[in-house]
């Protein structure tokens, strides 16, 4: 009897530790990224919080201000409001350091040199991630001008990931990818999320939003709100 009771207790504990939707180990109640009343010329006051190991999908019609929201959080455009990371006010952190902590990958990534390798400080660190995303290691010597849109997106993602940011802002990172590459990108980012990375992921694809995120933000006409209620239907 005693033994059985112990066993049953063990089973319950085990089930609790591995729930149906595994919670990331680093996730805590205190938000990693806190945004309060963020405003630009176009964007209305936006507030949101992101915990470590959390992914939030951002959707909304084209031109609604999704990109502007991400740019404002990365501090690439003039903006007002309070943004903090781990309780540190953004205004106390120099711009370049902030952008290394809060990485941003735009929908159309920019390139400043002729070959792929020149955009990576340390190619050996990048190579492992590059091969994960279905590109060969020789991609280092490829000229930027001959890359396809999908190759550019994947390489830009690698570039952003190897900076080891705490938060990653993704603007339609899989928009031009085939199904296999989309899966590779999603699983790569899921691994980073389980390790504590927080992600804001702009996507037009409702199925993708269901796969990657538990929460959804909707950006409409420059204002941001959290979507509640409807989305769990897409979950299995």
């Amino acid at each position: 009897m005693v033994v059985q009771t112990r066993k049953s207790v063990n089973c319950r504990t085990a089930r609790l530790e591995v729930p149906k939707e595994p919670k990331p180990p680093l996730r805590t109640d205190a938000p990693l990224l806190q945004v309060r009343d963020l405003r630009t010329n176009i964007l209305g006051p936006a507030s949101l919080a992101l915990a470590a190991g959390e992914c939030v999908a951002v959707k909304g019609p084209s031109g609604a201000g999704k990109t502007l929201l991400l740019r404002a959080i990365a501090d690439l455009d003039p903006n007002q409001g309070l943004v903090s990371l781990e309780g540190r006010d953004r205004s106390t952190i120099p711009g370049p350091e902030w952008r290394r902590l809060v990485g941003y990958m735009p929908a159309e990534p920019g390139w400043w040199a002729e070959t792929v390798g020149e955009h990576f400080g340390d190619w050996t660190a990048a190579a492992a991630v590059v091969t994960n995303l279905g590109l060969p290691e020789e991609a280092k010597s490829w000229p930027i001008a001959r890359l396809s849109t999908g190759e550019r997106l994947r390489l830009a993602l690698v570039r952003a990931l190897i900076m080891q940011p705490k938060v990653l802002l993704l603007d339609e990172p899989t928009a031009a990818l085939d199904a296999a590459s989309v899966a590779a990108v999603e699983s790569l980012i899921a691994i980073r999320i389980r390790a504590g990375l927080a992600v804001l992921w702009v996507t037009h694809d409702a199925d993708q939003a269901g796969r990657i995120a538990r929460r959804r933000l909707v950006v409409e006409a420059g204002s941001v709100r959290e979507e509640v209620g409807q989305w769990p239907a897409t979950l299995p």
Partner: protein
Amino acid sequence: MASYIALSYWDLALASVLVLIDAVLSVLFGLQIHRSLLVAAIRMAVQLTVIGLVLTALFSLVSPLWTGLAVLAMILLAGQEVMQRQDRRLSGLWSFGLGTGCMMMSSVLVTAFALLTAIRPSPWYDPRYAIPLLGMILGNCMTGIALGLNTLTTSLMLRRASVEAQLMLGATRWDAAAPVTRDALRSALMPTINSMSATGLVSLPGMMTGQILSGVPPVEAVKYQILVMFLIAGGTGFGAVAAVLGGVYRLTDARHRLRLDRLGTAQAI
């Protein structure tokens, strides 16, 4: 010493027939440029005559005040010209102030350097030396700064994504703008480099020819020309570096953001 041949106004009238022939050719070939050609020729004659009178007055006065005012007027006119040559101007006072300030700094510095070291007229501000020297340095500095600033603003617009890509990865504004800054400085200094390498082979510089025509031995005229070339290279270099770095400073901010909103709308040219 002076063994030059003075020209009469009839000599000039005779030479002006050449411009009239150009105008006739323009009419014959339907080039539609005879009008602007004649206007330009008349402007040139009137402007140079006025300058001749002004210089005569300045040279006879040898006054630091009037020399200084003439220098200021030249710099302000050059600043206006730099502003006119921009496709995209900086907003606010910067559009006139940046180019003008940098030209003032570099051309005055380099002219004073030449007057105080190499030429040493007495007094050192003697307008007979100061004004022509400043004019030559300012003219080249103006071209360099206008080209440098125009290259900077247009390349920042065209290569915005590449500059911002570096900012996104944690580069400082100076690092992110470095490729564009280099291009701007290169285009600012290219005309000076080209003119230095071609001079004497392809073209004889105006100042040197002028001195030779007025009876100065060629070797002496050449020495002056070499001095002036060095002064021009120095003045254009300082001015262009200051203007381009000032432009990068203005088009980015303390949070290391690219601020193309600080450019005005495109100029109709």
